[in-house]
């Protein structure tokens, strides 16, 4: 473990897990999954679960808002696309723990730091997908829209963005699922989440399975929600051509 990580670790409030492994049977033997213990201690995971949910939702919503702004800005100024793709790409490559440490002196210890970093990670995927979606809008639809007297803004909101929606949703799905995974590290920024119980006792199998399993279920739930939202928002894609 690196030095900064070690210095952050004690801040995760988790020592009590270890102390409670003094019972008998499954827990003491550290069995593959102790259902009874999991059932009795599930309430320990509720707060981290809610924190995780908030971290992911806030980061993806903020990421969508910023990426949409960037994409709209570069839509009519094509020369902005390469630098913006590069910038979001650089953000994407920063290791998350390093990102937290860089932000600590500015935004302090807590949720804000985690959300800023997580948001930065979503930008690359969402931005690229919006740009690709806007590029794939049929030229005939754009020409017809302009020819009927739509302004640039009307064309963007009434034609281009709705038609780019499938690509935008696809980007949101990838960004959300990966944010669920990365958000387990938010505990090192002091923002809680499922990383809190997870890193509190990495040796206790039941704990790892429970915390990790909840993260996986959350990712699946978010993904399903976005798929359904995408279908509802783009009914024209379901239609069967005659």
């Amino acid at each position, binding site marked *: 473990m690196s030095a900064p990580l070690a210095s952050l670790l004690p801040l995760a409030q988790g020592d009590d897990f270890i102390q409670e492994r003094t019972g008998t049977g499954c827990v003491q033997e550290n069995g593959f999954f102790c259902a009874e213990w999991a059932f009795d201690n599930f309430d320990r995971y509720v707060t981290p679960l809610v924190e995780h949910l908030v971290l992911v939702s806030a980061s993806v919503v903020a990421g969508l808002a910023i990426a949409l702004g960037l994409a709209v800005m570069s839509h009519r100024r094509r020369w902005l696309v390469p630098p913006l793709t590069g910038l979001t790409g650089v953000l994407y490559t920063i290791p998350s723990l390093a990102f937290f440490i860089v932000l600590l002196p500015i935004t302090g210890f807590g949720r804000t730091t985690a959300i800023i970093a997580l948001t930065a990670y979503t930008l690359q995927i969402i931005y690229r997908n919006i740009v690709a979606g806007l590029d794939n809008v*049929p030229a005939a*639809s754009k020409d017809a829209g302009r*020819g*009927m*007297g739509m*302004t640039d803004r009307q064309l963007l909101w009434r034609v281009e963005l709705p038609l780019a*929606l499938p690509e935008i949703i696809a980007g949101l799905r990838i960004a959300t699922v990966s944010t669920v995974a990365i958000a387990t590290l938010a505990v090192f920024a002091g923002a809680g989440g499922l990383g809190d119980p997870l890193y509190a006792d990495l040796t206790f199998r039941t704990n790892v399975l429970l915390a990790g399993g909840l993260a996986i279920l959350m990712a699946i739930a978010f993904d399903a929600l976005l798929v359904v939202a995408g279908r509802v928002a783009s009914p*024209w894609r379901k*239609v069967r051509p*005659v």
Partner: protein
Amino acid sequence: MDAPAAKGDVGEALSVEFRSATKRYPGSTQPAIDELSVDVPAGEICVFVGPSGSGKTTAMRMVNRMVEITGGDILVGERSVRDRGPAELRRETGYVIQQIGLFPHRTIADNIAIVPKLLGWERERIDARVAELLRVIGLDEEIARRFPAQLSGGQQQRAGVARALAANPGVMLMDEPFGAVDPINRERLQNEFLRLQAELRKTILFVTHDIDEAIKMGDRIAILREGGRLAQYASPAELLMAPADGFVEDFVGADRALKRLSLMRVADISLWEAPLAFAGQATAEVRAKLDGAEVPHALLVDGERRPLGWLSEGDLEQPTVPQRPHTSPDPVLELDDVMRDALSDLLQAETRYAPVVDARRTIAGVLSVEIISEFLTSDEALVEEHPAAERPLAETEEAG
């Protein structure tokens, strides 16, 4: 079609006047459109036709400022397009493109409602207008709730025309509107559109690369050549009779004589009189009629003067005209037939004469190959001119 006159309604057809309109793209030495001057009277179809690179689409797009003119002027309803806001001008100008450009994410009804919505019409008025247009273009109300991908190519094209007509524009711009449709449906759509135009009387600028389509659709045709220069601006008949130069002659094609025939009906030409014979009539009377007649055969008709068949020499050697003719009267042509089809029928039946009947099937005269060839070498074609929208389109009744 009477749309209620209200705010945002344009209505009346407007004239379009190109005054030395020029388009020069930056960095290019040759203009794309070179001092184009064309005057399109209100309510007429003007077809821009020419080879690729002749700028016909560019010329059309200058009218609604999709392409900005760099010299000269274009007046729509006697107002310069330079003085109009592009969005406002475009909302008052119908626009149909080859790829149709229906919005795939909107239902047909919503697609048709786009310009009325942009103009801020009220919901009820938009709904009424959409329903009216669906009826006018012959699409089911049920289709209104479908998405474009659920429609056939022909239905999509009709919806595209309905969308362009939605706010009752004074001018319609149509860029190869039937280009993406198969030949059979294209012909049907063309005929439907001409019938619609006969009612609506819009001013239409129509772009095509197909001279046959231009001749069929146009009241006037502007032939453009490379570099956006006008080669000739004339009515279809004039163009076929008197091409301005070698370029136009080549473009119109070697078969321009035949093309002229597709512009006319049998009724437009002077027919020969048929020597008629009635069953039981004395053959001497019939033989007297044949003497010096243009048609050397007698035509047996019934009491209503409907043709039954041709009589032979042998038939006329009897004392009276027999009940049954020697040969069938086929092909029997109608006054309403397009001349080109009539000639085709004559040639196909390997006959020189065909009886022509009116709507009640009564004999109106005889058409012969000689009449047609004489007509083609005369100047009559110049006089016989039929604006596309006035032509009856009886042969397209099955369309729809």
